[in-house]
Every structure is written in C-alpha cells, then in structure tokens.
C-alpha cells in the first residue's frame, strides 16, 4: 500500500522564523546591517523566539500557519 503523501502545508510561524532568520544566502558587501549585525540580530531574535513560543504556545508541531494553493 502506498500511503498518501504527507501533508505539505504544515508550516508554523516558528518554521518560517527558523528559515528566514537562520538560512538563506548572505552576501557580504556594503550592508547597512552588516553580517555580524544580522547574526547579532538573529541571536537576539533567538531570545525573542523563546517568548514567541510562550506567546503562541508553540513548542511542537501545532497549528498550521499557511497553506499553499
């Protein structure tokens, strides 16, 4: 038996933040926010993430955020 493909719209806010803040190309150059600052920002944001978890009550696979058409 072939199981149905796993749903692919289970994206939580934390998943989005994980991707957008920690991954993606970083190009060095004349950035207004230097790479170091981006990292710092991301670090601080890691703290913020903790509070997002408590605010949203999300630590595990929970509510679906977006579902692509």
């Amino acid at each position, binding site marked *: 038996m072939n199981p149905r493909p796993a749903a692919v719209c289970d994206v939580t806010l934390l998943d989005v933040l994980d991707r957008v803040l920690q991954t993606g190309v970083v190009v060095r*150059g004349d950035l207004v*926010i230097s790479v170091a600052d981006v990292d710092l920002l991301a670090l*601080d944001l890691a703290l913020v993430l903790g509070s997002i978890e408590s605010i949203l009550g999300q630590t595990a696979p929970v509510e679906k955020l977006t579902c692509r058409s």
Partner: protein
Amino acid sequence: MSEIGWYLYGILQGPGQLRDPRPRRRQGLSDQNGSSQPLLSLRGIDPCYSLETIAYQDLIAVTSRVELEAFAPGRGRGTADETAVSWLTTKALAHQLIVERLASCGTIVPARFGMVFHSRPRVQSILEQYYQRLCLLLRHLEGRIEIGVKVFSNTEVLYPYVQKTNLDLQSLLLRVEAADTGRAYLLKRQLERKTEELARQHCLAEIAAIARTLAGAAEENRDLGVTGGVTGMPRLLFNEAYLVARDKATRFRRLIARLQLQRRNTGIQVVVNGPWPPYSFSSLDEVAAGTPTEVAR
C-alpha cells in the same frame, strides 16, 4: 523622512521571469496574452514601496525600498516584549511570502532576513562580485525544492510504549505491582531509570533509521540543529532540511507518510514542513569550496 535603503529578497536568473503564473492559471489557459500580474506590483516588506529589480548581466536581484531607521542595527535587540515579537514576525512573514511568490516564477537564491543596502549600485556590485558563484548556485538549485523534517519525542507516550514492547521492563513492571511498599519504591526507581535509558536508545535508533531513509531519497540534506526542549513538552530530536527534485517530491512525501504511519502511537512524531524556497541550500561559501561536488563539475 528617514534615509532609504534597498532590502534584498533574493536573486534570480534571467529577465522576464517576474510575472506571476498564478493569476493566469486561475483565469484558464485561454488567457495567454500576458495579462498575468507582474510581480513587481507586489508590495515590499515596507508596504509603502513596491518590488524593484536590479540587474547585472543575466542576474536580477529583487529588492524593495525600506526606511533605514526601521532596520537599523539594534532594532529589537535585547527586547523580548510583544511589540518586538510582533514587528519581527510580521516582517519575517512578509519576507517569506515575497520570496515564495518569486520562487513560483523560477529558480531563486533566497536571501536571509534583514539584508539592507545603501543604494542600487551597491546591490549591483554584489551581483557582480558573486556572479560566478550565484550562477553555479542557481544551476544547482534549478528544479529543486526544500522540504523540512522534524522528529519529536513525547515521553508521555514513548515511555509506556517502550515498557510495553520490552520484556525486561514488563517483568520489572509486574514485580513493582507485586512488591510491598518499601520494595516497590526501589523497583519503581529502577524501572524509571531503565525506561529512560531504553527510550533514549530507542530515539537514537529511530533518528538514525529516519535519517537513512530520507537521505537516500533526497539530493542533499542539512542539519538545522535542535534546541533544548521545555520540560513536559514534546522534545525536538531531529531537524533536517532536504533538497528534493521537484518531480520526486511526491515520492519523498510518501516516504515521510510511511515513516509517520509506522510510528503512530509510539511517542515518536515525524513532522514535515514546506515546501520552501531552498533557504537551507543557498550558501555561497559552500559553492566557493566546491561542494556540493555537482556544482563544481
């Protein structure tokens, strides 16, 4: 008014890609006269400004203007209050939605959140500086998507499952039930310790099995790291991104569904997220280092 900067969403190859294919699909194929909506009319991360492209040779950077003040270093630093959280989540979501729309037009090297440049020529010079590597990366990412997989353990389900499926633990459980109060306490402690240890081993074996199965079906994978869990909450054991050929994505998802099915009610939960633009596979450093090997060819 605050000074203006250019916020980068990502880099695509070739002009003329930036028309959203979706409206046309909705209207049916009869409408083929380019009435699809240009993506450039989309609002940027600062909704006062629309998207702008900046070209160098056949590469285009998609940007939009932002007021520098809003993105200045230090913004939100050290503040974990609800205002900072709400600013960040709104902006991060906007970034993701725009990158996702761009990805629907063609292969994209998605940018990390928060890259703001002083001027259009500066963005252009970035394209020039990284031209070769960006082209290699775009070629490597073509026709591929990113799918995320997380594995959680939930001890409330896992521990009873481990006890139920292990003969030693079962007999220990029976001895606990039969023993008098004093001895029962000691046996119970022993049972807890053994359960914990066997559950730990079980988790490691499960992660190894899941990783092996999925790596075989993907082009590449990246460990995204696990952070410390909160007591009493499901614990994140495994957090991986997979680069999967678009035409093999359904097969990959089937594989995940099978892994989920096999582990139902065992306290091990496999959760999939995505598909994403290839955020986790967009490192210029790795292209420079000649890995993945395919890129170097």
